[in-house]
């Protein structure tokens, strides 16, 4: 398998606070990685840098041949549109757009919109009857499924999920976990931040962070 993500000596400082202190690891194409650690360990900072939402202070983060650290504002914008699919803990849907339009928004910023394709993406996540609903008319699980459909609509190289089940009840957690399993089985590369050990166990590998440092990278079977 080819390496999709290569992180080497990655550092991020917010003033005097060191969020990442020389983190290094590699992710192969099609892998499902769980990034775990206590609050303030640098998990979200790491995922933000890999997603082009933030820039590192030092080191390199190469995703599909692109060193994110070297991209300017316009380059980061294109990178986010073309290579990354985000799934956030808070869903982050535009409240005045329907489920369909939220998916199409990602298409609009990527290239051109295709309503049929957006509709199919929602059918795929089980929201066939909810396409014209506004986020406020959807349950948390349904909103997260819209977010999953939106993350996948542009066929990203890397899916970044930040606590994807953190805001969901048990039933909805199960639905989203099932969706992530399916994505993994289809060959998507997933980097997932989670506090939930049960969810972490579903990944191929687990990266543990503490105080901005990498504590261990291990096969999930080895950590159990």
């Amino acid at each position, binding site marked *: 398998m080819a390496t999709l993500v290569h992180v080497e000596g990655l550092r991020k400082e917010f003033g005097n606070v060191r969020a990442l202190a020389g983190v290094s690891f590699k992710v192969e194409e099609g892998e499902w990685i769980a990034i775990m650690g206590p609050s303030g360990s640098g998990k979200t900072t790491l995922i933000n840098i890999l*997603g082009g*939402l933030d820039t590192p202070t030092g080191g390199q983060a190469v995703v599909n041949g692109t060193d994110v650290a070297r991209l300017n504002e316009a380059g980061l914008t294109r990178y986010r549109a*073309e290579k990354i699919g985000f799934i956030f803990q808070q869903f982050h849907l535009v409240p*005045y757009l329907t489920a369909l339009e939220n998916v199409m928004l990602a298409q*609009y*910023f990527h290239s051109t919109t295709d309503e049929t394709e957006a509709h199919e993406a929602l059918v795929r996540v089980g929201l066939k009857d909810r396409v014209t609903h506004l986020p406020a008319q959807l349950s948390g699980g349904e909103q997260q499924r819209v977010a999953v459909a939106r993350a996948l609509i542009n066929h990203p190289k890397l899916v970044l999920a930040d606590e994807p089940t953190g805001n969901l009840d048990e039933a909805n957690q199960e639905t989203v976990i099932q969706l992530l399993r399916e994505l993994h089985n289809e060959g998507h590369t997933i980097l997932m931040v989670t506090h939930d050990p049960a969810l972490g166990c579903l990944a191929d590998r687990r990266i543990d962070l503490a105080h901005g440092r990498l504590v261990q990278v291990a096969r999930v079977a080895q950590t159990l």
Partner: protein
Amino acid sequence: MFTRLLWKLLHASRGRLVIALVALVSGAAVISALLNLQFDIERKLTQEFRALGANLVIAPSHAAQSIGSGADSPALMDQAAVMSQLEKMRTQEVVAAAPYLYIIAQVRTKPVIVAGTWLDEATKLAPTWRIAGSPVASREDATSCLVGRNVAQQLKLAPGAQLELSYLGRTARITIAGVVDVGGAEDNQVLVNLPVTQDLAGLTGQIGLVQLSVNGTPKTITSYAQRLATSLPGFEVRPIRQVTEAEGELLSRIRLLILSMVLLILVLTGLCVLATMAALAMERREDVGLMKALGGSISRIVGLFLAEVGVLGAVGGLAGCIAGVALSHWMGQRVFGTAISARWEIFPLTVALMAGAALAGALPLRRLGNVKPAVILRGE
């Protein structure tokens, strides 16, 4: 998708945008009414000034304006020569032109100024004359006259009464058709048709001066006077300065006032939009952060919001224009007594001005360029 997003944005913030829209519609209404007035003011004012009387005079060089005695006064002009030349030079701007010959005649041993003119044309020169009785409709009528209000009062004259004018041993008996109330020199005069004074004075075919009422701006009046002077050598053609200068000054002051008000309203409208947009920019930080995270370039995102403001300006401008036309119609009726016709060029001008004011008011949207998606998505 762009139109879809635009509509959704407009719909989502309709509460706030209605405030900006009301400001834009009100601003556009007043601006279009003022601009309509500005375009039409020259025509209306010149019409108003024409009601005040003559604004051009043709007189002999170094003319005296009346003759006290003798048929050999040097301050006279040949009526046929002047009037025929004037007829050739007559354009549609000339509202009226009346020859005058003044004499001081006796009425019951009292001296009275008698103005001989074309009475049909004289009433066109000054349409504001109030006549109690009836006007004299024909310039050939040598048996009827109009009497000024003060003369009628002093001599106890009324319409229908007979009047005997004596001058240098000649007399003329005429019937008073009406009493005129002018608020000017004519209140102290007896106004007769020209042949009456010419016969009394023995000056057949002679006139003392010609008064003209010419439509147009002070510039066009002066230009017409110059052309007239060239075609009438030996005569003096001069604008009545008080009228033309007052007209010019009033026009420029009104224009300045209107333009200042338009500017002020534009600034106020822009400020109102600015306040709305500042609040809206704060509200939309999260949307912008998310759009950026999804790969939306700032130009594309801000372009959406600017289009929203542009649509608002255009709609506000257009709606305001329609209200403004009605407003100017009402203002015209109130101020000038006649409706001000709608000028269609006002529509694109007002819409462009409103869109400009709205876009200038959208400056706070620039702040959205600084939104950091990571910060917004953390919920900060």
